[in-house]
């Protein structure tokens, strides 16, 4: 019997011919990623008491949640991690000004390849399913175990397949599709499952857009989420790695727990918005009426990539951010920052009144660079709108696509981009 992609990768990593859902397997780990919480991992690792990590070449550490250090406390943990990294000979370390958001930095620098088992101490590690990796989030102590043994136990997940046909309507993006899916299935709709996205609408997406699907699948509980390994993906990866790249996919006779068919054109008529305070509280924009926004945020591991900055720049070029609204823009990585500088996107955004923050997680986790006061409302291209996520427990976050964030910044309230710009811009970035 055939296997899904999750089953295939786990079987191989566990040294078995086949595996089936609900089986417990111990799998070899190919890559172990941590950010600032490497300090927690380090503490647990030291408690376990082994002298050396299992393989320093398979560990990547990327600071992103609090860069540059916003407090003495953070500066101290950064310092402790730097010292640990040096002592253990961990070469793949991206310090302040060298990387950016971990989920962007890993693929950008060729650390991720199809068929890998990748664990990260960050829930949005599912993002790397867009590169054909079995990639999932784990906690800090669990990671200390991986640093010790280079392996981890997994329950083989059943797989939910989502096939999307048709073509996206103007202004509708990957963010709208995945918010629609999360709205349909709920915050626990894919709990413990693997998700496979496929179909013509998915295969026509840029790699950056596919990352949005894999990233946000976490918000419906997915353990891992894949988009197809195809030529588009291999074209992205080839210049970034010298390692062999494998065209890996599910078997044609793989068994799925459920298959959902959607049409990009027929099931997505307008932008989708996740309303406070849950990512599955999704409504079409037209149902929301007048929602004034105090702050608009464009960035994060979900939507801080070059195509996101480009669409915002094209909407904001020659316009200004509404006087009652603040627009905060955060490129996802140093590389994206440089490209956006070179291509003039940041100039257009700054000219419109945006404040550009350094690459990193920004205000998404609620620690710095744009915290909300009680009573304030934010429209954000980020991934979570939980109560108090971006500041006061009495603030509200609406999650939306980069185009809606940019349009709303101009309008000073939630707005459809078509009300700001007559013609849909043709994006150059792929």
């Amino acid at each position, binding site marked *: 019997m055939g296997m899904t992609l999750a089953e295939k990768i786990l079987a191989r990593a566990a040294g078995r011919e086949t595996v089936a859902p609900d089986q417990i397997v111990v799998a070899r780990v190919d890559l172990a990623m941590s950010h600032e919480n490497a300090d927690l991992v380090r503490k647990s690792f030291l408690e376990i008491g082994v002298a050396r990590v299992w393989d320093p070449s398979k560990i990547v550490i990327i600071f992103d949640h609090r860069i540059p250090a916003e407090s003495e406390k953070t500066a101290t*943990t950064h310092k402790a991690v730097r010292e640990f990294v040096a002592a253990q000979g961990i070469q793949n370390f991206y310090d302040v000004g060298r990387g950016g958001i971990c989920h962007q930095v890993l693929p950008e620098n060729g650390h991720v390849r199809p068929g890998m088992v990748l664990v990260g*101490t960050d*829930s949005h590690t599912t993002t790397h399913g867009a590169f054909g990796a079995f990639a999932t989030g784990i906690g800090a102590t669990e990671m*200390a175990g991986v640093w010790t043994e280079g392996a981890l136990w997994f329950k083989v997940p059943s797989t939910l397949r989502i096939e999307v046909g048709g073509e996206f309507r103007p202004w509708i993006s990957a963010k709208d599709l995945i918010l629609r899916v999360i709205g349909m299935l709920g*915050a*626990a709709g894919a709990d413990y499952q693997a998700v496979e996205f496929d179909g013509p609408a998915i295969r026509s997406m840029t790699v950056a857009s596919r990352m949005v699907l894999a990233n946000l699948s976490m918000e419906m*509980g997915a353990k891992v989420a894949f988009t197809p390994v195809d030529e588009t993906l291999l074209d992205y990866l080839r210049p970034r790695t010298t390692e062999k790249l494998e065209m890996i996919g599910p078997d044609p006779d793989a068994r799925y727990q459920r298959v959902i068919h959607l049409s990009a054109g027929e099931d997505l008529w307008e932008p989708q918005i996740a309303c406070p305070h849950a990512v599955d509280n999704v409504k079409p924009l037209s149902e929301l009426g007048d929602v004034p926004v105090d702050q608009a945020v464009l960035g994060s591991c979900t939507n801080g990539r070059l195509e996101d900055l480009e669409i915002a720049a094209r909407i904001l070029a020659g316009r200004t951010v509404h006087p009652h609204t603040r627009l905060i823009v955060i490129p996802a990585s140093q590389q994206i920052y440089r490209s956006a500088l070179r291509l003039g996107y940041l100039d257009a955004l700054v000219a419109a009144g945006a404040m550009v923050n350094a690459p990193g997680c920004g205000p998404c986790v*609620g*620690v710095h660079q744009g915290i909300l006061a009680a009573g304030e409302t934010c429209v954000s291209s980020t991934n*979570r709108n939980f109560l108090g996520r971006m500041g006061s427990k009495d603030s509200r976050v609406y999650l939306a696509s980069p185009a809606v964030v940019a349009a709303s910044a101009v309008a000073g309230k939630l707005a459809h981009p078509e009300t700001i710009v007559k013609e849909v811009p043709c994006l150059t970035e792929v």
Partner: protein
Amino acid sequence: MPDGSLKLRGRVTVVLGDNVDTDLIYPGRYLNVTDREKTAEHLFELAYPDIRTALKPGDFIVAAKNFGCGSSREQAAAALKFAGAGALIAASFARIFFRNSINLGLPAVVAPEACAACAAGDELEIDLAAGEIRNLTQDRLVHAAGLDPRAVELLAAGGLIPYLKRKHAA
């Protein structure tokens, strides 16, 4: 469960609803607290600050489905453990949170009917290996899923760190 016992007795502090996320359990602004014991100070700080004061050592938190969804922050499980929770009982748990709890030695018990069968203040007895919860106050049995043997092994050791410590000392 420092003694590695698989039978627990305690009181229900509170019964919570669906999708209690890790931002509610432990706000992101305190993620740079890396001393596990100190995380307890911020348990449910934004949304339900009363839970921390009501929680007595050995108490149980009961919730509906998808408890601990969201971030991978281990501090959410640590805050519950070091605030004194003896076990967590929910209709279902988000996967990273579930693993974090077990790895820290805090039992997480899946019991689909627990919300309907328990009220705050009820006295419960949990048999982790048998997958059984006895509500002593209401004199009723609540079915729970038996824990995976791997999880039982980790809980019996007191968590992943003591488990690995022993394994690699040999």
